[in-house]
C-alpha cells in the first residue's frame, strides 16, 4: 500500500509494449451518475465488472443485476447445526455414560439432579439457543468474507492512487481485462461516454 502504481499511461504508450493490466477504472462523483452508468455497462453485456462505492448505493444491486446471495440459507443451516450440537453436547455429557472418541476418549456422566429426568429438554433449551446463535453468527461473518473473497490485501485496485477515494466520496466502475468483451481502448471510450470524470487503466 505504500507504493502506488503510476496513473494512466500517456497516449504515446500506444505503440510501446503495454504492461498487463487488471482492468479499466472509471470515476464518478455522485451516486446518480454511477447508477445510470452501471445500467449501461450491464446492458453492454460485460460480465467481469464491478462498482466500488463508499457506502451501499440504493438500487445498484438491481442496476448491476446482482443475484441474491445464498448466505441466509447457509446461515440457517449453521444455526440448525448449532441447535443440534447444543442438544447432543448436553444429552451426551449429562445423560449418558457412553464413551466417544472426540480427539480423546470422552465419557458422559448421567447427572441425577433433584429427581429430574436425565434428558430434561426445558433445561437444555438456553444452551441450545445460545449455540444456535453462536454458530449462525460466526458462520454468517465467516461465509460473508469467504464468498466475498476477503481478506485480499494485495488486490491490484488497492495500489491505485485514484482508487483511494473509493472509501471516501468517489464512485467507481471497474471493468476487468479478463472480460471477453474487454478491449482496452474501446472499453475506455465506452466508459468516457457514460459521463465518467476520469478513466484510467489499473495495473495488474
Amino acid at each position: 500500500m505504500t507504493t502506488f502504481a503510476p496513473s494512466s499511461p500517456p497516449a504515446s504508450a500506444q505503440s510501446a509494449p503495454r504492461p498487463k493490466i487488471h482492468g479499466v477504472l472509471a470515476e464518478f462523483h455522485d451516486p446518480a451518475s454511477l447508477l445510470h452508468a452501471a445500467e449501461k455497462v450491464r446492458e453492454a453485456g460485460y460480465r467481469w465488472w464491478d462498482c466500488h462505492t463508499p457506502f451501499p448505493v440504493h438500487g445498484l444491486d438491481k442496476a448491476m443485476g446482482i443475484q441474491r446471495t445464498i448466505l441466509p440459507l447457509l446461515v440457517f443451516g449453521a444455526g440448525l447445526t448449532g441447535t443440534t450440537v447444543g442438544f447432543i453436547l448436553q444429552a451426551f455429557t449429562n445423560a449418558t455414560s457412553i464413551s466417544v472418541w472426540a480427539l480423546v476418549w470422552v465419557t458422559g456422566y448421567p447427572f441425577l439432579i433433584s429427581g429430574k429426568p436425565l434428558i430434561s429438554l426445558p433445561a437444555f433449551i438456553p444452551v441450545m439457543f445460545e449455540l444456535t446463535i453462536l454458530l449462525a453468527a460466526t458462520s454468517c461473518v465467516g461465509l460473508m468474507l469467504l464468498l466475498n473473497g476477503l481478506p485480499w490485501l494485495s488486490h491490484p485496485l488497492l495500489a491505485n492512487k485514484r482508487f483511494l477515494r473509493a472509501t471516501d466520496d468517489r464512485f467507481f466502475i471497474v471493468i476487468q481485462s479478463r472480460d471477453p468483451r474487454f478491449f482496452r481502448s474501446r472499453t475506455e471510450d465506452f466508459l468516457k461516454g457514460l459521463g465518467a470524470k476520469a478513466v484510467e487503466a489499473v495495473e495488474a
Partner: protein
Amino acid sequence: MSAIPGNSRTGRLPGFEETDNTVDVPGQRASLVLHMDKFHQVTRQVCQVAESKRPPFAWYAAFVVSLSLVGLLGVCVNYLIFTGVGVWGLNNPVMWAFDITNFVFWVGIGHAGTLISAILFLFRQKWRTGINRFAEAMTIFAVICAGLFPGIHVGRVWLAYWLFPIPNQMEMWPQFRSPLLWDVFAVSTYFTVSLLFWYVGLIPDLATLRDRAKGTIQQFAYGLFSLGWRGSNRHWHRYERAYLLLAALSTPLVLSVHSVVSFDFAVSQLPGWHTTIFPPYFVAGAIFSGFAMVVTLAVPARQMFGLKDMITLRHLDNMNKIILVTGCMVGYAYSMEFFIAWYSGALYEKFAFLNRAFGQYWWAYWIMVSCNVITPQLFWFKRIRTSIPLMFALSLVVNIGMWFERFVIIVSSLANDFLPTSWDFFTPTWVDMGTMMGAFGLFGTLFLLFCRYLPMIAVAEVKATMPQADPHWEGWQHHGAGHGHAALASPETPHTPDAP
C-alpha cells in the same frame, strides 16, 4: 442546514453551542447530519480524531485517571487471587455481593449497544448510525468488565476452565441444568457475537482510515484489519445481507442474555429472587442503564472530539426518551413486585419486600427508587431532555440507581432469608470498593483507546443516511447526472436537500 425551519442555535458559552434539530417539521425528514452536505466532510470529521497528532488534553487527563484505576484493579484482583475471597466483605449468608452486583451491572450496560445496533436497525431507525459504533464498543468493553467478576469470584481462579465442557482426565462435566452454566454460554456467546457485529461494521471504516493513512504503521494496521475491503458493490450486497442477519440474530440474543442472567436469581428458591417478572424486568433495566451510559459517554465524547454535527441534539433527545420509557418500565416492575408479594399471600415473599424498603438496607432501596423511577420523570420536559448538563447529570444518576438496583436485589434478599438466626449484614471492604472502581477504570481505558484509534462514528452508515446518498435525490436530478455538474464536485454549490 440552518435553512431548515426549526433548526436553531442555542447555548451561550463559546464552544458549547448546540444546534437544535429536535423540532419536527411536517413533510420533512429531520436532518441527522448537520452543517455538512458532502461525503468527504463526514469522512474528515470522523477520521480527524484518529489522524490527529495528539488528542485533546481532556483525553490525557481521563486516560491517566482510568489507567491508575486499572492499576488499582490489578492490585485488588491479585490480592484476591493470592489470599482468597475472604478479602471481600462476604459472609454466610451473603455469599454474593459486589462481585455479582458488578457483573449484572456491566452486562446490563452492554445491552444498550446491542439494542442500538440490532433492534433499532431492524426498525429502520436511521438516527442509530450516529451512535451505534461507540455504543457497540461500549457493549464490548462492558462485557469484558462483566466477565471479569464471575471469573474472579469462583475462588480458585485457576480452575475457571471447569465452567466449559472440556474433556478432562477426571471425566468431569458441567451441570447443564444449572442457570449459572447457561450464563456462561449466554455471556460468552453475547461477547463473541457483539464483537463480530462491531467488527463487521468497522471493516469499511477501517478501509477509509487505511486509504487516508500517511504513516506506515497506520497503513499496515488499518490495512490488515480492513481485510482488503474495496467497497465493491458485489461485496456490499453480501455485507448488507450479513449485517441484517447479524442484527436479526443479535435481537433475540440480547433479550436472552439478561433473561438468563435473571435466571441466576429467579430459578433459585430465595424470596425476593424467585419471581417470574425477572426476565422482562431485567431486560428493561439493562436497556435503561445502558442508554444512560451511552449518554454519559456521548456527551463528553462529542464535545471533546468535535462530533456535534453527527451526534446531534436529536440523537440525545431520542435516547433520553428511551431512558424515560424504560425507567417507567422499571418503575412498573418495582411496584408489581410489591403487588405480587402482597397478592401471593406468601409470608416470606411479603417479608422480603417489606424488608427491602424498610429493613437494614432501606437506604439502598430508596436510592434505587429515587434514581431510577423519580428523577428520570424529569425527562418528560423537553427543556430537560435537550439540556446537555442536565441530561449528563441525570444519566449519572441513572447509572448510580441501576448499580444500587442490583445491589438491593442481591444483597437484601440474601442477608435476610428464611431463618432469622442466619441473618447477617454485608459491609464492603476496600478490596470490594477497589475492584468496583477498577472495573470502571478498565472500561474507561478501553473506551478512550477506542476513541483515539478507531472511527467513533460509522462513517459509511452515516453517509448512507444522508439525502445525497440517494441516487434519486432531487439535487442529483437538477444537476443532471453525468453532465459534468455533479454537485459534490463543486464546493460552492449550496444544497438544501429538503428544499421544496
